[in-house]
């Protein structure tokens, strides 16, 4: 039982949960969050791939990739949330 096995399983589970949420969730905010869950799950898998037994240091390239992924994900989330705000306003005006 090493951390890579435990957290590899966690990553797969989180990715799966996120996928289910992204396809099945009923409200928009939750779908965006579900996609973010997917990205965290993928981050887990990349980091597990980079992990080495403690005396040796982990592989820095996947680490850099995950950081890039986090930044890109926050950009995507910002755009998605702005779209949600716009949609809310439009719908609210329609009902008015």
């Amino acid at each position, binding site marked *: *039982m090493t*951390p890579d096995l*435990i*957290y*590899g*399983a*966690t990553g*797969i*589970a*989180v*990715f*799966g*949960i*996120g996928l*289910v*949420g992204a*396809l*099945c*969730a*009923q*409200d928009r*905010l*939750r779908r965006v*969050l*579900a996609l973010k*869950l997917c990205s*965290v799950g993928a*981050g*887990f*898998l990349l*980091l597990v791939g*980079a*992990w*080495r037994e*403690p005396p040796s*240091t*982990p592989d*820095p*390239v*996947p*680490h*850099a990739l*995950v*950081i890039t992924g*986090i*930044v890109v*994900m*926050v*950009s995507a*989330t*910002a*755009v998605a*949330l702005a779209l*949600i*705000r*716009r949609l*809310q*306003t439009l719908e*609210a005006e329609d*009902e008015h």
Partner: protein
Amino acid sequence: MIAPLVIFDLLLALTIVALAVAVLCLRDLFAMIVVFIIFGLVSALAWVRLSAPDVALAEAAIGTGVTGALLLKTLHHLRYVTGRLGQNAARGLTAMAPVPVAVLLANAAFCGLITLGLAVAFLGAPAAGPGFEGLVAQAMPQSGVEHSVTAVLLNFRAYDTLMEVVVLLAAVIAVWQIERGLSEAPAPVMGVVWQGFARLALPVIVVVGTYLLWVGAEAPGGAFQGGAMLAAVGLLLLLTRAYVPQPGHRGLARGAFVLGTAAFCAGGPSGGQRGPRGL
């Protein structure tokens, strides 16, 4: 005999999965966002266990902090819109058109298949051979910095990082265009205790954010993490109403963003800090 750290890892893993399920299941949107923030922080803790402190810092600051602020802003806007109409529960506005149960089931089955495939691929992958760490260690003297993750981000894969700064810029421009003419929910009045906190915290956040940026050259830290701290400064200023966004300032802000990206193209690692600030 199981080592205590393994028990800790297992507990942490279970917590993460439980929190992820809770994000999908909680009915109250505010509770969902709070649980999501906790999920991000606990995953960051797990990433420290995978000896990736840089990534954990980035996830805590950007993936959880900035994202959480954006989510709360969206929820605030949502409640503002619904409150102004005085009807129509908050859920109604975020909800999408109902989907037939059969489609839902098909989707779930599809997800299950993909996840299963992922698991098979993960377990069937060959045992971890040597990755890039040898190559990175060889090239480290040429990079001019002492921390390997920073070297990969800013030196060896600089085009990749440039791309991500451009993505940030594109996102900021897209958000500006989408929100053009949208009536903003006013920032809440927070009171004197909050003002006192901001007065104390603002300068320290600036200094600590800059320190993170500086220390990225040799230890965990870096431009994006420091940039997220500086983004927090902007948020604090908005929440204290010390700065009220005005249409006239937009051109100035746009210029600053484009300049930041241009500065990064010119090769300065400091250009990266400009990007996250706008979010």
